[in-house]
């Protein structure tokens, strides 16, 4: 199964690309700022939009916070979301995606872990997703995101983000698909779709009250956005 909107979709070697499940540890100033808040407040409601991470759940529930997990990128790969447009070409059914995902009451969460989802998401979904997050975040709520600063093309591997310590992340390449979990094969089709520059990011979070950038050495720009 291929996902035609992904750059490099259908390339040979997709599975091999995921065979390295070793983790890369990197320091994260954005995470450090976020965890400083998490340590000072109690019983916060957090939303993790990456693939299910036992490590993140352990870390965050261990701090006494409640966590919701929803892998929106995986959800966006449902082939039935592609419907014929007016010109006959397949287009993303944005309305249906938004009706089926991120269905929470307004102001439900104190913080959202967005990771690098927008870099890999279908272009039509990025803006509505950010607007929805604005709705479900509490005022002064935080969003932590990561954006590539250099276009590594379709070869930029997709990683899962695990919280290591208060200021370190462990990036894990998606492991090979487990037997009986054919749906996970979708992870191996994720390819970097675009590179947002600072102006793009500021426009994307136009409705939010503030945004702070942290530039990493590994061509990743971290952003901590305040609702």
């Amino acid at each position, binding site marked *: 199964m291929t996902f035609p909107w992904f750059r490099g979709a259908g390339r040979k070697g997709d599975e091999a690309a995921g065979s390295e499940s070793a983790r890369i540890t990197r320091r994260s100033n954005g995470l450090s700022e976020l965890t400083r808040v998490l340590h000072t407040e109690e019983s916060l409601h957090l939303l993790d939009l990456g693939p*299910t991470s*036992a490590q993140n759940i*352990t870390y965050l*529930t261990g701090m006494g916070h409640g*966590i919701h997990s*929803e892998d929106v990128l*995986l959800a966006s790969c449902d082939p039935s979301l592609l419907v014929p447009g007016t010109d006959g070409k397949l287009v993303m059914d944005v309305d249906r995606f938004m009706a089926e995902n991120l269905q929470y009451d307004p102001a439900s969460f104190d913080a959202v872990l967005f990771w690098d989802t927008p870099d890999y998401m279908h272009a039509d979904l990025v803006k509505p997703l950010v607007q929805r997050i604005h709705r479900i975040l509490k005022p002064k709520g935080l969003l932590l995101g990561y954006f590539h600063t250099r276009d590594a093309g379709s070869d930029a591997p997709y990683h899962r983000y695990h919280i290591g310590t208060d200021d370190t992340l462990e990036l894990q390449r998606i492991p090979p698909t*487990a037997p009986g979990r054919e749906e996970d094969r979708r992870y191996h089709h994720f390819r970097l779709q675009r590179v947002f520059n600072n102006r793009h990011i500021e426009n994307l979070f136009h409705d939010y009250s503030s945004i702070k950038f942290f530039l990493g050495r590994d061509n990743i720009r971290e952003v901590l956005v305040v609702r």
Partner: protein
Amino acid sequence: METSKPLDNCRADTAHIGKSVIVKGELSGSEDLYLDGEVEGVIELRGHSLVIGPNGRVRARIQARDIVIHGKVDGNVQAVERVELRKSAVVVGDILTRRIVIEDGAYFKGGIDAQKEAPKAEPVSAVAVQPAVPAPAPVSSTVIAAQALPVGAK
């Protein structure tokens, strides 16, 4: 109903529901249950363990003492002691428990409320003493425990 099951918690005193069985309605009992079939409705095994096998497909609210999930669950899950999502698990719903273990590869969409253990009253006699904190579950290299610290440990 099936007889031999290689998975954990499958002992002779465990009731089995095989993969060809479909149940619609309320499923309750006072013994451990291995469920590899399909259930739609409610599952209540207060004080007992539930294992949902790899072929199990559940659309139900679940309550039990311990719950181990290999299959697919759509509904809220509440366990007095512990919930385990094994690597083949696909769970959509909220989880309420004291301890949760999620194996790498499990899919989960929903909220987790890891309850803290209620404070224990002082034991009135030595005979009545129960361990205030259950022994930590063994954690293998592939299983990571996400556990709310018991009150006495903070």
